[in-house]
């Protein structure tokens, strides 16, 4: 294991690193252009679908009574979950001074920002009247109308906006030295862009200290915010008295799930940029190895929470909860439930648990499985409960997503890719200065 995964980056001359990392900013391949056009088209299709939905009415989606929440909320939770890839992980690694984090942090932090932007859009897409989404925002007005601060949705909005602000800062602050460097080496609009964003960074000691202190502080804060965000997302469900939603375990369960899917997403994106941006030398197998250990740990934690959740429901045997539990593990939704278990536990447990099997390919496979599994987990939380409210007379035949919902969901993946592609074209995907400035421990 060690033998085939051991090359190190710090022996490389810094200039070579900068060259490799900056190359994608200068050179644009046809492959890149085609990809951008492709994902751009898909993202535009999604926008069109949303327009269509607003024009026709929210009824073009498959929701009904009692399945009032569905695809959009599920995707919301999923994206917010993945958003934990970045800031949270990078903050943990920063606070624990994990030196191997260096090539990973920026890629991760960017994921967070884009996931939040996309995830945060879903609740608005989901609204019956999205054009007045701002009623949820507490702003002073002549009618003295405030949002209801008792509503988890208002907490949600606050938490997500805070997390987004924090994440943007967290991504931006450590980018400043790189931006200043870039400004020196570019011309035209790029130079203008980088210079503006570099905020006159000169690289003085005072500035470096300030940055370091800011990053420490931010890392601590963002950790708290990230945990609270997904807890609040969990509370959207747990605060409702719907069967199997009303559970104290949901907060930590969601946080664990979020980190789980976040790491998977990060690993996957790392594998992709490693391959397509030729950064094999910097994103080393050992980085994958270390992160995959974290993934493995989350996999076990996920199992623990999943067993706790379902065992208590089953043992408690309350009729209303049993309906949901039953359809989930034995009825209509059982195939999805067991597929989720395979994706979230069996596959990563085997591929990551057995050392001989662990390499970048299997780690990527595990990550894909975990992403699918975590998507299914959200599906299994949202649907069976809503379809089986306490009074059986209100159950309907179920919910099927329509082409509008599926289009919008798919297009958000394209939007994510698009944002990432644009980002990687404008900003270095690895923090170059971290190699230069901060001594390895």
């Amino acid at each position, binding site marked *: 294991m060690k033998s085939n995964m051991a090359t190190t980056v710090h022996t490389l001359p810094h200039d070579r690193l900068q060259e490799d990392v900056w190359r994608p900013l200068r050179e644009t391949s046809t492959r890149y252009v085609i990809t951008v056009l492709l994902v751009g088209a898909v993202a535009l299709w999604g926008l069109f679908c949303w327009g269509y939905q607003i024009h026709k009415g929210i009824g073009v989606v498959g929701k009904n*009574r009692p399945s009032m929440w569905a695809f959009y909320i599920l995707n919301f939770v999923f994206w917010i979950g993945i958003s934990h890839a970045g800031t949270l992980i990078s903050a943990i690694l920063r606070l624990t001074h994990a030196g191997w984090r260096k090539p990973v942090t920026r890629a991760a932090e960017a994921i967070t920002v884009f996931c939040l932007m996309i995830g945060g859009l879903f609740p608005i897409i989901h609204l019956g009247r999205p054009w007045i989404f701002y009623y949820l925002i507490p702003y002073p007005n002549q009618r003295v109308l405030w949002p209801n601060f008792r509503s988890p949705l208002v907490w949600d909005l606050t938490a997500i906006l805070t997390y987004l602000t924090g994440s943007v800062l967290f991504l931006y602050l450590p980018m400043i030295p790189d931006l200043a460097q870039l400004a020196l080496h570019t011309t035209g609009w790029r130079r203008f862009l980088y210079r503006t964003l570099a905020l006159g960074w000169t690289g003085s000691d005072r500035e470096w200290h300030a940055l370091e202190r800011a990053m420490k502080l931010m890392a601590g804060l963002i950790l708290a915010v990230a945990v609270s965000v997904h807890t609040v997302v969990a509370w959207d469900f747990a605060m409702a008295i719907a069967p199997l939603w009303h559970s104290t375990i949901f907060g930590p369960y969601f946080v664990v799930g979020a980190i789980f899917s976040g790491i998977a997403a990060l690993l996957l994106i790392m594998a992709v940029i490693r391959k397509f941006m030729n950064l094999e030398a910097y994103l080393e197998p050992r980085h994958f190895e270390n992160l995959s250990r974290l993934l493995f740990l989350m996999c076990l934690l996920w199992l623990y929470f999943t067993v706790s959740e379902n065992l208590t429901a089953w043992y408690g045997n309350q009729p209303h909860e049993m309906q949901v539990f039953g359809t989930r593990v034995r009825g209509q939704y059982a195939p999805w439930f067991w597929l989720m278990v395979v994706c979230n536990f069996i596959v990563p447990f085997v591929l990551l648990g057995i050392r001989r099997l662990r390499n970048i390919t299997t780690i990527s496979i595990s990550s894909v499985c975990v992403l699918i599994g975590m998507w299914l987990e959200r599906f299994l939380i949202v649907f069976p409960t809503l379809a089986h409210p306490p009074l*059986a007379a209100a159950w309907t035949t179920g919910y099927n997503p329509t082409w509008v919902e599926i289009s919008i969901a798919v297009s958000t993946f394209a939007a994510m890719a698009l944002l990432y592609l644009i980002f990687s074209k404008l900003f270095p995907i690895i923090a170059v200065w971290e190699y230069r400035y901060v001594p390895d421990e």
Partner: protein
Amino acid sequence: MGVSLVADQPKAAEHRWGMAIDLDRCTGCEACVVACHAENNLPVIEPAEAARGRTVHWIRVDRYYEGEFPDVKVKYMPVLCQHCDDAPCEPVCPVYATYHNPEGLNVQVYNRCVGTRYCANNCPYSVRFFNFFEPHWDSPLELQHNPDVAVRMVGVMEKCTFCVQRVQRGKRDAKEAGQPVADGAIQPACVQSCPAEAMVFGDLSDPESKVSRLAESGRATRLLEDLGVKPKVFYLQKAK
């Protein structure tokens, strides 16, 4: 409209509206269901949409079969908004579009509703209905619309209001007559129509009102009582 909406409200409301439904009288005829449509301008949902579970019935008659042939029994239960005193639909609404009025009604403010549908998830009785599309009436069906009741637009939640327009009118009439609201003077449309007189509406804060007496009777139960949401609809069980 004053500056403060809260300060203008009376300290202790004079009334607390509630309902009793006698399951021993109810025949499951669903006159109440149609009466509510007529009174409250409920939208007509076309078959394709009905097949998707979007029909709107502010009051529905739940029917459950018990046992197997030939010893089969049927349980009918008209279910409308229970106007829960601790209504779980209310705190979750981010914009106060659904709230508790001083007389205990769970009220829906259509103008305010942004359509999160959270309240519907949190209503254990599944009595909240959503306008998935702009409602439509084939002309001239709209001539029947009750001008006392707003037609709801696309994207907003709606539900039984205890016929708040009739409550308001009843109070106005009593005020003009200089008398207290007489027991039974206010009848929501469903109550009014029920042939078996299975439903009784009235003031729970008046211990002498018919609904109070029925709510105190040994046959009174509340739906999903263990949830503790304190519904104000009392179901009188069949008795021998």
